[in-house]
């Protein structure tokens, strides 16, 4: 069925520039942050290279449509990243720390200032320089909020985008079916009540549809909705979800995620590790890809062995893989400590888009990619 689904068009003027807008900070001040960070990383023994990056997008979009959308949107979306390279075992390894938000100075550095981020990147690089490769195997893994964000975005989110669904994604025709364990509720929201400063925050999409309360994609293990623009909503007979996004005026709106996340559970963060007899703790999202068939691949920044509830040896260059919905069905613990932690960088589905993802600590089964002897 071709055409556009009806919706209540967005009207009004919205701005998200933060409590301490970046426009009030000089170029020199931002340059000083980058230089201080670089200097702090470089002065550390064993570090052979440093990169510090400040980037800010100041967007203003006005969307007017024949069905009544008339909306003026203004966003500030900065991100900051530090990379430290250490040498060890004949190899150079990277430690990285990054943050990205919708907002201003206070939101960007709310989890720690640039020097704390520099220290974290250095510490990670130094530890990874001494780390070994893991032996590849299927294993119990505990994902941190950043990895849960990557899982939500890459492995689940892309498969439920209406355009992929129409093409034959693995979840086509599965609304109402069980796709995950009871513990899993997954949402995509441009206006998340958990944290409005998430990097993917938008008030209305680029077809002029208000983002409203967001979309529950999976509810207690059952698939409830896909993500739509007006066209796929009509084709698939579901409500418009406000996921049509265009990076610039030269791009046409296509279906994109905003902030995609798994709701927290009722375990204490420490309890998830303490309850794990034999597994791995995966921390920090690297790159990731997922497929129409639900098979995913994630890079992890740090992977720790967990034995008898105790975190032990660190491994480097670990990749996580598996079938998304098998993984989600294997989830047997989710903790309370929720955060968004995927806000730096971009999703690159034909165009760039600022997105975010998050969750709490989540335990499941997956394949670790490592080295064979």
């Amino acid at each position, binding site marked *: 069925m071709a055409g556009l689904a009806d919706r209540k068009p967005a009207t009004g003027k919205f701005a998200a520039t933060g409590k301490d807008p970046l426009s009030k900070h000089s170029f020199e001040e931002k340059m000083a942050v980058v230089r201080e960070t670089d200097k702090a990383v470089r002065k550390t023994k064993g570090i052979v290279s440093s990169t510090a990056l400040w980037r800010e997008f100041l967007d203003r979009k006005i969307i007017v449509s024949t069905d009544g959308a008339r909306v003026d949107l203004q966003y500030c979306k900065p991100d900051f990243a530090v990379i430290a390279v250490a040498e060890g075992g004949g190899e150079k390894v990277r430690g990285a720390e990054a943050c990205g938000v919708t907002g201003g100075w206070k939101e960007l550095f709310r989890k720690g200032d640039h020097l704390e981020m520099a220290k974290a990147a250095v510490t990670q690089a130094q530890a990874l320089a001494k780390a070994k490769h893991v032996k590849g195997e299927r294993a119990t893994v505990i994902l941190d909020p950043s990895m849960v964000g990557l899982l939500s975005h890459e492995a689940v989110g892309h498969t439920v985008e209406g355009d992929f669904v129409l093409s034959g994604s693995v979840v086509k025709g599965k609304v109402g079916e069980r796709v995950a364990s009871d513990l899993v509720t997954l949402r995509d929201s441009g206006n998340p009540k958990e944290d409005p400063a998430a990097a993917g925050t938008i008030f209305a999409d680029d077809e002029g549809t208000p983002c409203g309360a967001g979309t529950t994609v999976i509810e207690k293990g059952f698939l409830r909705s896909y993500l739509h623009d007006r066209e796929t909503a009509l084709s698939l007979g579901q409500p418009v979800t406000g996921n049509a996004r265009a990076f610039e005026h030269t791009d046409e709106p296509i279906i994109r995620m905003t902030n995609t996340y798994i709701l927290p559970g009722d375990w204490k963060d420490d309890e998830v590790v303490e309850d794990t007899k034999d597994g791995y703790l995966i921390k920090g999202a690297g790159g990731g890809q997922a497929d129409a068939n639900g098979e995913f691949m994630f890079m992890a920044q740090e992977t720790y062995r967990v034995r008898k509830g105790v975190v032990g040896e660190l491994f480097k260059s670990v990749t996580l893989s598996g079938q998304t919905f098998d993984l989600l069905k294997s989830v047997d613990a989710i903790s309370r400590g929720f955060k968004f932690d995927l806000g730096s960088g971009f999703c690159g589905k034909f165009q760039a888009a600022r997105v975010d993802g998050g969750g709490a600590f989540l335990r499941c089964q997956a394949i670790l*990619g490592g080295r064979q002897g």
Partner: protein
Amino acid sequence: MSDLLAACEYAVKKALKAGADEAEVFAGSGRETAVFLQDNDIKIGRTQASDQLGIRAFRKTGLGFSSVNSLDRKRIDSAVTAAVALASTAPRDPANRLADPLPLHAVKGIYDEAAEGFTTEQALKNASTLLREAKAVDPRITVDSGQFESAIGEKAIVTSTGIQASERRSSFDWFVFGMAVDGSEVSAFQYEFDATHQVDEVDVAPAARLFAEKAVGSLGTKKCPSFKGTVIFTPGTVQDLLASTVEAAVDAGSVQRGMSPFAGKLGKPVASTTLTILDDGTLPGGIGSSTFDREGLPHHNLPIVEKGVLRSYLYNTYTANKDKRKSTASADGSARSVPAIGPSNFIIPPGRRPLDDLVADVKQGLLVTRLSAFPEPVSGNFSGVVKGGAYIEKGEIRHPVRETMLSGNLYEMLGSVTALSREQQKIANYFVPHIVLEGGSVTGG
């Protein structure tokens, strides 16, 4: 003088008048027509025209940059003011100097006058052919998305050091992306793309068919055992995985920042003697060819690796100044950003034996048509999921694989290349054969 050159010259004069010691203005202008495929159908057509102009201003060796998407003189004036103001506050660096002009020799085959008359209907017809040819291979093929685009453009550069050049180019490029669906089985995503400058070389069918064959070939997958052994990368995997890693390692900026394992290895072996890699921006008709780079310097046919020995890094003027040597004319990018570093046409000359013979030699191995992985450019470590591949045993391809991960170190694997296929594939600006490597670590599901 073209309008574009005139705009560049205007901005350079303005920048010098505003207090810049040196200035470079790079501009691009073009129009394009694109037709998009989505969900096994034509989705939308788009035509657009665009202008870009970017100013690099240098003041007391500080660098400022500003760009504008218009050739309107008032907009250019604002961008010039911003670039010069930024240069005044930027950190000083003696390597921030512009190149002097060098003689340019026009590269042939990158502009086809017939492209001026290429119509929207022709673009639509090619997009339809892309869809039809892919689906004709097998009814299980589903095209998620695709695109055919035709473009005509001009780029121009003027610097205060005397560089003044412009060039026209035409291009046609296309891609197709999707999977095969057989009942409840959905294959991994597959994609193919290609490009040309010439109207009479527009032929979307081979990419469409190759995409479809790869997608159908990734149905019926089985698990394979874990082992350490031989891996054959197809040209697509060489382009996607190996080439990007080598490009990062020979980027002089990475070398100078201590982020390349090739630092200090000029004249030393970095790969097997089987492997030679060239960067040739002068190749007639090459997708990566042009008469001059992002800084107005003439491209060369540059050996990067010769029989395993590292011969050159890729330099732009800034990194060349830092190393007190000449740029390799590898400045890359558009008018919207400062010159980066990148290859032009990335070429690995082929071997002598056909692929079938190379497979016949493999006792236990994996043919990889697509690997989902993000290699760490600094260490070369990678660990990815084989999205398209087949298990090889006793010299025969046994079956497509699933839930299979491949790990290793790409720099170590460069040293373990044992053979290159006679077949060489052109994938846009990459000309690469199949490559046989040892030392891949395969984890079955």
